[in-house]
């Protein structure tokens, strides 16, 4: 039937998401109560096996469809999970194409390294087994999301990803800040999911109604469903929706959902707070996997997005703005994980605007975006894990309490430096290639504003990354804890080394040959050599950081004082959080919720009580007639008889 019919990995691709799920059940229900140590090992092994399988699958797939050839989407396995109507059913399954393989590899690979790292990092923590259960659940959800062949399965796992990240962020559930961060993450992404859901409903229902126009329902194959990506991305549906004027609204709604998970402005507020979770979690969720779900979604629905045009443009500008906005904030933060969080925001901004500048004919941005997703996963996970090793050693997140760690932690130092160089876009590290391609794609499609932003942010990125590198690892020790710091255990350093190696070389992959969209693969190297200004921008960022932070700290202090109010506004993250708090607490709670609660208690319930009260009052009034004296009653009776007699007399005569 197809070229992969004999591939073990392809035929059993369902195991890739299923393994972490089984492990989640087994570890959560049976192993965790018995042995923490075993829980960690089983969880890690299951994900590692999944990683092995997905690499095997990638190998088989790209052997069957070699670089440069067309990469078809194949359904490895599916079954009808939920049937709303004929042709409106959810066929849960595993879609194998270059995009899903890319994400499967990234997710399982990073996840298994994070699992391994966590064995060392979480040692001795309360709830060690619980942690691995959550981690498995998250990995399962994320894999289910990336292999989804239909948009409803995407939504299902999208929600599960939200919940498992909620659990992981709130892992330290006795810590109020972690609790509120997890709530915030869940509710903000849930708010975005609402739009996603409406978008899904809209696109699915319109697609479903459109089916009758492509032919009688009977003439379609039985297993076609309006939720399937293969159907939704077909040009017929896009044209149909466009004619109804619903394509752009639907795609923008879906993009809002993507923006929520990918923490794009203005829905980014949950991500920095999410750093309350354990550091490996940040590496997994908030660097390599969950936050790129939005990028994945836009890439998955790239065809309808491109057909709309406007929706893609919106995505492009939102991405570019987030990219700049987050990079600026990252320059001022003192918490090492928060800097990395804002850096993630900024890098995702890159990926999104790269998609935004692409179009159905100019697809370089698409490839560049996913290329950056690929490389970013490695170096950002490395940065987080490195930061985790540092935090593990010095028990603080504040970079000004570190310093001089290079000598104490040589492996961490070198790997962190590699990652820093990679994210700064220095040749020959991975970030250089992907970032260069993104900037080139913006230039090539004549989006000069976005191009300028990309170029500028490349410099800012290099600046803030070297800022934290210099402050953390170089110079003198600034606290007692640093003197006691020592290198992390093996389980933690091995993932660092592996990731560092990948961060160094991943850029040499001819990515466009493997992952691309549409007919032509995304090669557009020709013309103006964009890499020169991009590299210059990065190098100048490094130079400025060196000038300000290396050596004495007087220069940085002077700079903050010079900037004054501007610095404070940026340091306070432009007060976005405060605005949200104001809107939710002051406006929604006070002006919607409280009045409704009041209205219910006083008006609606009052209405019921009023009815009861009126009945009782009525009874009281009428009971006055009840004097208790038989003679009164008799009087009434006699009067009544007389009245009846009179009436009869009147009417009869």
């Amino acid at each position, binding site marked *: 039937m197809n070229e992969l019919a004999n591939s073990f990995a392809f035929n059993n691709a369902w195991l890739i998401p299923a393994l972490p799920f089984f492990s989640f059940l087994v570890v959560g229900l049976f192993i965790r109560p018995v042995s923490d140590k075993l829980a960690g090992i089983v969880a890690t092994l299951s994900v590692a096996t999944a990683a092995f399988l997905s690499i095997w699958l990638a190998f088989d797939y790209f052997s069957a469809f070699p670089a440069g050839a067309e990469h078809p989407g194949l359904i490895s396995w599916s079954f009808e999970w939920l049937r709303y109507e004929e042709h409106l059913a959810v066929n849960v399954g595993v879609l194998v194409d270059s995009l899903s393989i890319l994400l499967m590899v990234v997710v399982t690979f990073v996840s298994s390294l994070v699992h391994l790292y966590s064995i060392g990092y979480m040692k001795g923590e309360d709830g060690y087994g619980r942690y691995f259960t959550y981690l498995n659940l998250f990995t399962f959800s994320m894999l289910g999301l990336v292999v989804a062949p239909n948009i409803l399965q995407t939504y299902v796992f999208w929600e599960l990803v939200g919940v498992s990240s909620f659990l992981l962020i709130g892992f330290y559930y006795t810590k109020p800040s972690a609790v509120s961060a997890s709530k915030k993450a869940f509710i903000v992404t849930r708010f975005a999911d609402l739009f996603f859901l409406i978008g899904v409903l809209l696109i699915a229902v319109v697609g479903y109604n459109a089916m009758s126009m492509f032919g009688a329902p009977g003439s379609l194959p039985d297993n076609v469903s309006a939720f399937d990506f293969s159907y939704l991305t077909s040009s017929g549906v896009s044209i149909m929706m466009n004619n109804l004027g619903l394509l752009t609204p639907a795609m923008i709604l879906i993009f809002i959902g993507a923006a929520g998970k990918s923490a794009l402005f203005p829905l980014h507020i949950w991500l920095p707070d999410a750093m309350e979770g354990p550091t490996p979690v940040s590496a997994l969720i908030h660097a390599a996997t969950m936050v790129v779900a939005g990028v994945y979604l836009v890439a998955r629905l790239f065809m309808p997005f491109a057909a709309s045009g406007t929706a893609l443009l919106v995505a492009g500008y939102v991405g570019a703005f987030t990219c700049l906005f987050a990079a600026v904030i990252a320059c001022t933060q003192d918490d090492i994980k928060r800097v990395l969080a804002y850096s993630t925001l900024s890098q995702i901004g890159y990926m999104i605007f790269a998609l935004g500048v692409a179009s159905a004919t100019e697809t370089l941005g698409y490839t560049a975006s996913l290329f950056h997703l690929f490389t970013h996963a490695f170096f950002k996970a490395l940065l987080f894990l490195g930061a985790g090793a540092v935090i593990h050693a010095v028990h603080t997140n504040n970079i000004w309490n570190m310093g001089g760690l290079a000598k104490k932690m040589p492996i961490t130092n070198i790997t962190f430096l590699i990652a820093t160089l990679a994210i700064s876009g220095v040749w020959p590290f991975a970030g250089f290639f992907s970032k260069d391609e993104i900037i080139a794609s913006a230039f090539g499609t004549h989006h000069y504003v976005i191009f300028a932003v990309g170029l500028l942010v490349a410099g800012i990125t290099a600046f803030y990354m070297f800022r934290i590198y210099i402050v953390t690892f170089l110079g003198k020790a600034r606290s007692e804890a640093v003197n006691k710091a020592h290198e992390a255990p093996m389980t933690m350093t091995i993932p660092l080394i592996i990731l560092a190696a990948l961060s160094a070389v991943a850029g040499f992959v001819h990515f466009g040959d493997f992952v691309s969209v549409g007919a032509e693969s995304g090669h557009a190297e020709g013309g103006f050599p964009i890499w020169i200004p991009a590299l210059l921008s990065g190098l100048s960022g490094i130079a400025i950081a060196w000038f300000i932070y290396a050596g004495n700290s007087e220069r940085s202090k002077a700079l903050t004082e010079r900037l004054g109010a501007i610095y404070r506004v940026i340091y306070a993250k432009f007060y976005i959080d405060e605005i949200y708090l104001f809107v939710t607490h002051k406006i929604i709670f006070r002006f919607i919720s409280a009045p409704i609660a009041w209205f219910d208690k006083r008006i609606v319930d009052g209405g019921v009580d009023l009815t009861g009260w009126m009945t009782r009052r009525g009874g009281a009034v*009428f*009971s*006055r*007639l*009840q*004097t*208790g*004296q*038989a*003679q009164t009653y*008799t*009087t009434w009776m*006699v009067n009544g008889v007389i009245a009846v007699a009179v009436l009869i007399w009147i009417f009869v005569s």
Partner: protein
Amino acid sequence: MSFSPELHHWLILSTILFSIGIYGVLTRRNAVGVLMSVELLLNSAAMNFLIFNHYASKPFIDGAIMALFIIAVAAAEAVIAMALFVAIFRSRKTVDVTQINTLKG
């Protein structure tokens, strides 16, 4: 010319008797008085039976039988009522009907 009472004379008499009875039932405060007034009512009703029997269905005596029934029932009623009054008097020390108002709402 001697006066010979006609039907309506008898009815007027019975109505007067009934009205006195009603008046008594409604105004007497003593329960025994109320009972006596009730007897008047019953008697006026019995009288009506006799009157109509006499004027309307001469050869039959249904009306007279009903009157006898009424007298018997009245006797029974008087006994029960007096027993009740005695019971009420024992508990409340009065047979003034205006004081007996436990039915008041």
